[in-house]
């Protein structure tokens, strides 16, 4: 299978302006070319940059460091990624009070699968700002500003071989000099490390051939390219069938319930299974990730500090959603309801619009969603706006619900956001009381709904109709008074509590 047709490649090059940067080495008579950097859609990606890698099956992107960039003739562009782990991915080996910072992640190291992977270059979503806070002398310490700007920080490693966490970063991780893993100091340093790398390539022939074989395996899988949206992740075939499962089982970790996917030869897996397996195994993911998915997807990240006030701005990729034509909302809600990916939010400022609700969710949970505020009617509360939110997955919805239940998300004016599962929709035909001629109208309306001639009129004062209409009016006014009283009372109760808030 060809990784990608040539025309496709050119097309993408034209659209997103892909350009190679400086070439640092070549091998096999120019068959394989190694690069220091490349430019994609105006962004320069260099060696040792951290990037987001998106997969189709996971709502959360993975992230890793680019440790090798190359192109093999007729086989497309490849990158080698050194992975980072989210705390949730290794939480069986992590004590609860161990996490000092919410945005901490762990560098993969050690011997075994899950440290690095070779991937098509196209799986990169965008750059990720990861700062190393290791106290190692060789690590240029980040400034406060850099720390604040960081998406994630790391100073500890997770050894996939010994399954242990350490705050000492080894001199070489996955054959990468530790100086390339630490923060960058200045240009000079970088050049030196790149020279090192060049030396590596030129000197270490066996490594090179090693890598070419890696590359060969990689190129067997086709890449469906959807740059900048959600590229399909394709990974090395041989990984899916070996390694970590056995490692984990062998090391006596209690993961037997994990999905029960049999370990078998790649030959025995059909393509679909394979793909799934590949994603599962992608970063040599510890199997517990799969076990605890439900309430873990985004736990412990995204929120910088508890007391910090986050300003809600437009989500970065907010505009990409406009690329797709949406299904009608009723249908989407129905499917989301069936998938249990639907939540009802309560206690929003009634003046928020749908996209603002989406942004709030994005900023507080780092979950993408589509939201629709529920329009006000006469009986809606004037204090509390509601919105219906569709999440990517049931897990995402559950996570958000769990967090909203256990913690308090404070919006301006002392509004604490509430989430709940949407109430069940009543079955059966709609009942509407108070129209006596319904039977006749029904026949008419069913037949020619769009052209139905309506009978709209004012009731005359001397008829029974008028008398009965007055009874309805009375009922309407009575309920208006009731709603007004109820909400007045609600308002007072709210105010009393809100006034006692300190901030």
């Amino acid at each position: 299978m060809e990784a990608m047709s040539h025309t496709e490649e050119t097309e993408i090059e034209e659209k997103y302006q892909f350009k190679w940067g400086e070439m640092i080495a070549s091998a096999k008579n120019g068959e394989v070319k190694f690069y220091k950097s490349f430019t994609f859609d105006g962004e320069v990606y260099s060696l040792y940059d951290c990037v987001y890698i998106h997969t189709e099956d996971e709502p959360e992107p993975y992230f890793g460091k680019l440790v090798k960039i190359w192109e093999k003739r007729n086989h497309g562009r490849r990158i080698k990624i050194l992975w980072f782990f989210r705390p949730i991915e290794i939480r069986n080996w992590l004590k609860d009070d161990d996490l000092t910072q919410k945005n901490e992640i762990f560098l993969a190291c050690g011997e075994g699968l899950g440290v690095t992977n070779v991937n098509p270059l196209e799986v990169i979503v965008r750059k990720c700002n990861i700062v190393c806070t290791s106290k190692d002398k060789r690590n240029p310490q980040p400034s406060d500003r850099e720390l604040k700007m960081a998406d994630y920080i790391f100073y500890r490693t997770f050894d996939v071989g010994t399954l242990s966490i350490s705050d000492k970063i080894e001199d070489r991780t996955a054959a990468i000099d530790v100086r390339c893993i630490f923060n960058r100091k200045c240009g000079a340093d970088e050049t030196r490390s790149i020279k090192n790398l060049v030396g590596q390539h030129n000197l270490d022939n066996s490594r090179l051939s090693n890598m070419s074989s890696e590359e060969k395996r990689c190129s067997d899988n086709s890449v469906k390219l959807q740059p900048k949206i959600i590229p399909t992740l394709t990974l090395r075939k041989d990984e899916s069938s070996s390694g970590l499962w056995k490692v984990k089982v062998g090391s006596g970790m209690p993961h037997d319930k994990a999905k029960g996917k049999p370990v078998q030869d790649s030959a025995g897996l059909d393509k679909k299974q394979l793909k799934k397996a590949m994603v599962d195994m992608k970063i040599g993911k510890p199997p517990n990730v799969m076990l605890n998915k439900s309430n873990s997807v985004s736990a412990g990240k995204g929120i910088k500090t508890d007391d910090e006030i986050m300003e809600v701005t437009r989500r970065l990729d907010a505009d990409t959603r406009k690329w797709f034509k949406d299904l009608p909302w009723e249908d989407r809600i129905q499917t989301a309801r069936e998938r249990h990916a639907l939540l009802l939010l309560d206690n929003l400022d009634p003046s928020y619009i749908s996209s603002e609700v989406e942004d709030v969710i994005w900023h507080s949970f780092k979950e993408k969603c589509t939201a629709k505020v529920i329009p006000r009617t006469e009986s809606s509360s004037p204090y509390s706006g509601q919105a219906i939110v569709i999440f990517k997955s049931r897990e995402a919805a559950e996570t958000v619900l769990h967090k909203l239940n256990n913690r308090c998300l404070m919006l301006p004016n002392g509004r604490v956001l509430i989430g709940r599962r949407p109430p069940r929709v009543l079955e059966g035909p709609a009942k509407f009381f108070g129209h006596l001629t319904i039977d006749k109208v029904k026949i008419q309306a069913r037949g020619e709904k769009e052209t139905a001639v309506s009978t709209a009129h004012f009731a005359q004062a001397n008829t029974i109709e008028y008398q009965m209409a007055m009874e309805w009016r009375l009922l309407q006014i009575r309920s208006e008074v009731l709603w007004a009283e109820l909400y007045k009372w609600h308002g007072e109760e709210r105010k009393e509590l809100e006034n006692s808030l300190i901030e």
Partner: protein
Amino acid sequence: MGTFAHKEYQAFEEKVKRTVYLDNLSPQVTVPVLKMALGQFGKVVSAQFIPNYIDGMNIQQCALVEMETAKQARSVVTDTTMYPFMISGMPRPVRARPAELEMFSDRPVRPGRKITCRWVDSKDPDYEIAKKLKSLTRKHYAESLFLLKHQLEEEEKLAKQQDEFLKSNYEKYDMLDSITADGTVKQVARHYYDVDITDD
């Protein structure tokens, strides 16, 4: 861009002033029906139903009808409030109110708004109150649901009552009709009151 957003929002606010909110509408009512019904008050620019995504409980339909001018919109509200106005069925009249910004699900963003949020956890001095606010909101929601249910029950009760009333009324007229037809009225009139009520 800022001015564009402001302009867009202003245009929207104008639109709201021209729009009437209607409820107590039967599920039989469609957009063309609405347009025709309100056509007698002026020119209808657009009409849409307020979608009800969540509760199947509130089955009356609500709609927004945009008129050509704010004056027309006002006259719809005053006239239908003064006299009971029926659309597609009787005797339950529709209710009209001036529309409000929040009734539009597709409203533009209010320019220059900043939203901030923060997590309040157990260490925060506001945590207890935040928790109370949460349960208060839940309580309020339950109360609204209860009132909504109560309202539906009342509607059903009234509909039943009126049905009974109409039935007995119908029987009354039916009886009157039949005794007129078979000559009983004539006989009784002559017998007791000595009056001749033949239509001469």
